[in-house]
């Protein structure tokens, strides 16, 4: 149970930069997801913290120890790999006790700790099995038990659930959170699955082309995305561009859109982000709640999915916006119908780029 600190870490392969000036603090006992598309550098960052990759610059510390130049095997980490990486020639118990043996813990004491770890991942009684006799989900649990049994300073997870099917993945997500809470290990989790990142972690770091573009609590990152990339990569988002006029933003047809948060100077061009589920779709003559933004639009496409509807509407400037609606009254607006969009200024986010 330790803080992990990454300061000004950079890495490039040849002339290709993979990570540029990454600094981040991972608090003791926290669960942080590194979220990004492939090539964003999230795995490289994890491997730098693990010690498999030596950064070109910057420092990594685990607890109060600067481990930048410490090899993997002396860092006291626990790691779960995408492919599980269980040792096929060893039994479950031998796999789990491998790390204990490296630390000189053997015999009855090791057996006791292995048993406890297997109980924690809910696989008691599997000690004598071989990895290939287990299902994917069970192998994943063994890999987790092997990583936590040594009480590592930090638990690193490299897309551990991506090889599992959907149902099993959801089950393991719940387990993972439970085990993390019970063990209290500082955990860093790499994923490209935004839903996984939001549901599992205390904090989400969004990476794009070797930089952390935003880091914060899931709700904070989702509700207040700072950049277009963050808004788009985490969930769906609509974008409106306009220019600042009288502490509001004038969009294409001159409609003034009220926003929350700070705006740049008068006449500056800005992009606003609005989540599709925050927008209410109204009949053209209906009025929305007091103080909400209102924008005329025309329904272009309706996607009916039972409990929910997705409308694609055309804004006055010709751009297409997405609106998610609950199917509360069973009414489906036809294509071509003029409508009014209504949303709160609180949900109108001014982007930095």
């Amino acid at each position, binding site marked *: 149970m330790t803080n992990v600190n990454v300061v000004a870490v950079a890495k490039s392969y040849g002339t290709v930069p993979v990570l540029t000036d990454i600094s981040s603090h991972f608090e003791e006992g926290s669960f942080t997801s590194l979220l990004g598309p492939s090539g964003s550098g999230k795995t490289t960052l994890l491997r730098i913290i693990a010690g498999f990759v030596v950064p070109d610059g910057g420092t990594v510390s685990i607890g109060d120890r600067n481990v930048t130049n410490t090899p993997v095997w002396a860092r006291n980490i626990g790691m779960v*790999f995408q492919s599980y*990486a269980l040792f096929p020639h060893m039994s479950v118990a031998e796999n789990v006790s491998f790390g204990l043996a490296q630390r000189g813990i053997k015999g009855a004491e090791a057996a006791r700790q292995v048993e406890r770890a297997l109980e924690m991942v809910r696989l008691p009684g599997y000690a004598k099995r071989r990895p*290939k006799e287990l299902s994917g989900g069970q192998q994943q649990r063994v890999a987790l038990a092997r990583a936590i049994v*040594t009480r590592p300073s930090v638990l690193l997870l490299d897309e551990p659930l991506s090889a599992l099917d959907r149902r099993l993945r959801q089950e393991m997500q719940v387990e993972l959170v439970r085990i993390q809470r019970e063990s209290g290990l500082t955990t860093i989790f790499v994923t490209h699955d935004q839903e996984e990142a939001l549901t599992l972690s205390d904090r989400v770091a969004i990476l794009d082309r070797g930089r952390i573009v935003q880091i914060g609590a899931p709700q904070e990152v989702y509700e207040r995305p700072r950049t277009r990339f963050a808004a788009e990569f985490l969930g769906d988002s609509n974008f409106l561009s306009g220019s600042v006029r009288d502490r509001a933003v004038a969009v294409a047809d001159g409609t003034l859109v009220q926003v929350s948060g700070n705006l740049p100077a008068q006449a500056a061009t800005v992009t606003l982000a609005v989540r599709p589920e925050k927008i209410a779709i109204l009949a053209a003559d209906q009025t929305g709640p007091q103080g909400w933004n209102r924008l005329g639009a025309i329904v272009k496409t309706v996607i009916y999915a039972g409990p929910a509807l997705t409308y694609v509407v055309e804004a006055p400037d010709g751009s297409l916006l997405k609106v998610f609606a609950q199917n509360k009254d069973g009414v489906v607006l036809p294509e071509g119908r003029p409508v009014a969009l209504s949303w709160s200024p609180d949900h109108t986010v001014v982007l930095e780029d």
Partner: protein
Amino acid sequence: MTIAARLYLLLILAFLYVPIGVMVAMGFNESSLYELPFHFSTRWYSDLSGNAKLMDAGWNSVMIAIITAVLATLLGTMASVALSRRTFRGKSLLKILLLPPIAIPWLITGTAMLVFFFWTGIGRGLHALLIGHVALAIPYVVLVVGTGLQSVRVDLEEAAMSLGSTPVRAFFQVTLPLLYPSIVGAALFAFAVSLDQFVISYFLATPGFTTLPVQIYSAIRKGFTPEINAISSILLFASMAVIIIVARFAKPGGVRDKR
């Protein structure tokens, strides 16, 4: 299986084993001129024990093959691990350079070795034969062990290191046990390459120190006697026994994990 397929299989087995069977049988035939009818006799085997030249050559062959198998497997495995797990300058060049010796005719390799050994003063004899055989067997070992290494995932070693193992210990605790079938296979290969070797042995052997194939060749030139059948049979059964025992215990390819 259709009758045609059975016949085809039978034919293949016949072409493989009938000549060997005839050779073994003739070792037990009384006639020194391979005449029929067959009269069972162990006379060639008792004569053989008196034929010091052939017996010595046989022992030399087995000894060289065993030493070659051990040395080539050790060196070849180390080379293979370096080529697949480490990065260093000239690695891809080295990888390419290891393969042509398999394709170069032994006659050319043998001539080259003879010239080189003469020129450097290494000369001929046991030590020269060992150097030659080991050098010849290494590419086969690198090839066989290299293929095996590809099936041992790198992340297994990484997992071991994340658990506190140094790279050397990770290799011995994880990679080596998984590589064991490949290494045994490679050793058998090296053993066979050495035991079979005629051309290079012919160049590097001295009148005082020869291997069995070379001795058989010079014996045949003077006239064929069933003693040759006898020693060939002994060698044949000995090497078959080794292969069967090893195959039984190492289960090549059987214990490898598919994941």
